[in-house]
């Protein structure tokens, strides 16, 4: 079977040991003819060292303002198969768990109604089906929906929430990341499908401060599991680790607050000074476990650089008892989120992420706006400059 387009440059990327995306595009093209033109267009970019996609153009399904990213080639004549080449964002399962049955069905849809290509997964977390044409978008969507999969977020809306593997397969999880991710996604379907925010808003859930879903570096609201009480110590297992490696050097000396010490052979932790960094637990999972009073911290405002510079998540709520709140259908959390969205709606400007708003109006004003008190956990240190705005309530 002859190739539609010669791709000498891309062919170079079939060499080497790492599995090749070029090979994948080719395999997709075997099933979905239009993707031959994708190969051609990408080869063209490789030659010209420039993208050949046009900016903008609409794509979508009825009643939804999100879920499809429109994409059109600059060269519709040359590459008619990608005249339209939209991506459909299909909301993944919590923790990315699947079975072969469902995955094959999704592959079917990708091959039958799109370019046979997928991103598993998009950077936000969605299953992305690439190469969708507008005319078949609705059908592809409904086929996904029949499998129980709705579309994900896009545009100025709540983006598809995502979480780490958590309690499903990780002993470190301090709360049920998968469940709350699912529950919140369900609770905010309207906010996901019908963009009406100033800009995007992302939620991610990590079961502990290892933050395996990188929540605090890329979601407006990051949920990081933690505990309030003492680390549980199995002294026998500590002794086993001591036989295996230099626990003093690699664990105790690296504790950020140096709150651990050996009393004889026994490990002692000053838990009041532990910052729940996970390091000791990571190094000695058999010997140490987080406490019983589990919950999560909420960090606010992480985002990419544009416009005012990159941000990491800032400590907003040191301890949220998610288990308790889930019994009331997350009343407290939903209240907090809706306070934030209202404040953002009222005071934010277009294309201003919530972290940027907080920065612009000032943390204290923001806290007042959403109904939280300033507490020392929020700061690295109190102010170092003397420009204090005393208010009259102080007299």
């Amino acid at each position, binding site marked *: 079977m002859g190739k539609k387009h010669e791709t000498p*440059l*891309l062919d170079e*990327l079939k*060499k*080497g*040991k*790492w*599995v090749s*995306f070029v090979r*994948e*595009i080719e*395999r*997709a093209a075997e099933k979905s003819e239009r993707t031959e033109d994708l190969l051609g267009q*990408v080869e063209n970019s*490789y030659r010209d*060292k*420039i*993208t050949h*996609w046009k*900016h903008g153009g609409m794509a979508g399904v009825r009643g939804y303002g999100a879920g499809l990213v429109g*994409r059109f080639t600059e060269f519709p004549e040359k590459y008619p198969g990608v005249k339209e080449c939209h991506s459909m964002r299909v909301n993944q*399962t919590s923790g*990315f*768990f699947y*079975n*072969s049955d469902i995955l*094959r069905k*999704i*592959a079917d849809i990708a091959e039958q109604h799109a370019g046979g*290509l*997928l991103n*598993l997964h998009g*950077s936000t977390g969605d299953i992305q089906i690439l190469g969708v044409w507008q005319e078949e978008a609705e059908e592809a969507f409904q086929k996904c*929906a029949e499998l*129980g*999969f*709705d579309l994900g977020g896009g545009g100025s809306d709540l983006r598809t929430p995502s979480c780490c*593997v958590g*309690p*499903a397969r990780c*002993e470190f999880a301090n709360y049920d990341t998968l469940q709350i991710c*699912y529950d919140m*996604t369900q609770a905010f*379907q309207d906010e996901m499908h019908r963009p009406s925010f100033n800009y995007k808003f992302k939620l991610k859930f990590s079961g502990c*401060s290892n933050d*395996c*879903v990188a929540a605090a*570096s*890329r979601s407006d609201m990051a949920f*990081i599991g933690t505990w309030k009480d003492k680390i549980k110590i199995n002294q026998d297992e500590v002794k086993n680790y001591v036989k295996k490696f230099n626990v003093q050097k690699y664990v105790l000396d*690296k504790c950020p607050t140096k709150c651990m010490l050996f009393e004889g052979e026994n490990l002692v932790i000053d838990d009041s000074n532990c910052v729940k960094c996970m*390091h000791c637990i990571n190094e000695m999972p058999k010997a140490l476990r987080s406490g019983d009073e589990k919950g999560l911290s909420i960090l606010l405002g992480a985002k*990419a*650089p*544009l*416009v005012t*510079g*990159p941000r*990491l998540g800032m400590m907003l709520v040191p301890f949220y008892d998610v288990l308790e709140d889930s019994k009331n259908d997350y009343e407290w959390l939903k209240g907090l989120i809706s306070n934030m969205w209202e404040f953002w709606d009222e005071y934010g400007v277009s*294309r201003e992420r919530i972290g940027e708003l907080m920065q612009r109006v000032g943390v204290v004003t923001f806290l007042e706006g959403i109904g939280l008190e300033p507490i020392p956990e929020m700061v690295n240190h109190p102010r170092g400059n003397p420009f204090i705005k005393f208010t009259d309530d102080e007299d």
Partner: protein
Amino acid sequence: MPEEVKKKRITDIGPHDFHDYLPPVIKKNYGKWAYHEILDTGSMVHVAENGDKIYTVRMGSPRLVSGSFVRDLCDMADKYCGGYLRFTTRNNVEFLLDDKNNIEPLKKDLEKLGYNVGGIGNVVANIVHTQGWVHCHTSASDASGVVKAVMDELYEYFVEDKLPSKVRIAFACCLNMCGSVASSDIAIMGMHRKVPKIDSEKILNLCEIPSTIAACPTNSIRPDTKDGKQTVKINDETCVFCGSCYTVCPAMPIADSLNDGISIWVGGKVSNARIKPTFSKLVIPFIPNDPPRWPKVVEAVKTIITAYKNGAEPGERVVEWIERIGWTRFFKITGFEFTKYHVDDFRLAETTMNYSSQVRF
């Protein structure tokens, strides 16, 4: 009636409930895992409080995959683990086995099919990345191609555990940073270097001028008129080529075959283990695009990995190593040049300077 119900459009149902896809041993031990052990870079075991075990075999993925790829996975999963599998947050595939004896056969089968088993432990993890020339209009470089070239070179570090700690590499094809590279051990990022062109013919149709002006981080855009029509002008002296204006206004294209390329950043970290999360810092401001295999980018990443491997102490992430030896030495060891571009000049620049007499000679 049933006819109608059947035809009813399904909306707002959210994602499929994950419970349906949990393997039985996970269902049973959900939230009751006691500890894990890494067996090798391709497999690990999690042990439940009751002694139950789940074995994970991890396999690399290019993320941009065909239906056939998916079917390969499914076949393997059916053969070895009741059809159960998951993806990781870094786009790897994880097969979830309850029978230890299936680990090696599965690995062999995967390798036979040309897949890469590895990625657990002190390795270079799969490179998180973005669309590039395959799908995005904003990109300053391709994504998948750069990632492929780098991973070919770093292959040994995916399959063998021989680094001081985890190394997370991420790629983003423009400053929007969809690959969330901002806090990676090594970040590779597409860079534009030319002021956007202004298509004054189309701008009024395609763009909202006030929001275009507001999009600029350096206040470089001003309203203007040309041939009696409203348009904008850009201050060349202050534009930093970020492409933010183009993102909101298609009439201001910024991509440029000759001037686009890649920058390299180092020392970011997401986890809170030991030290707090931190951004990656600039080490190479610009390498011209050199497809199909970007040899200089590959070389730069390799140089960093090698220096890190030789210099860091066990357990030190890249940033911990650099902070211990100092940035001056990092530049010395890697041979990268320190230039004026490395000195921050954005909004909070002054907080990045060395306010002390502490230096190394």
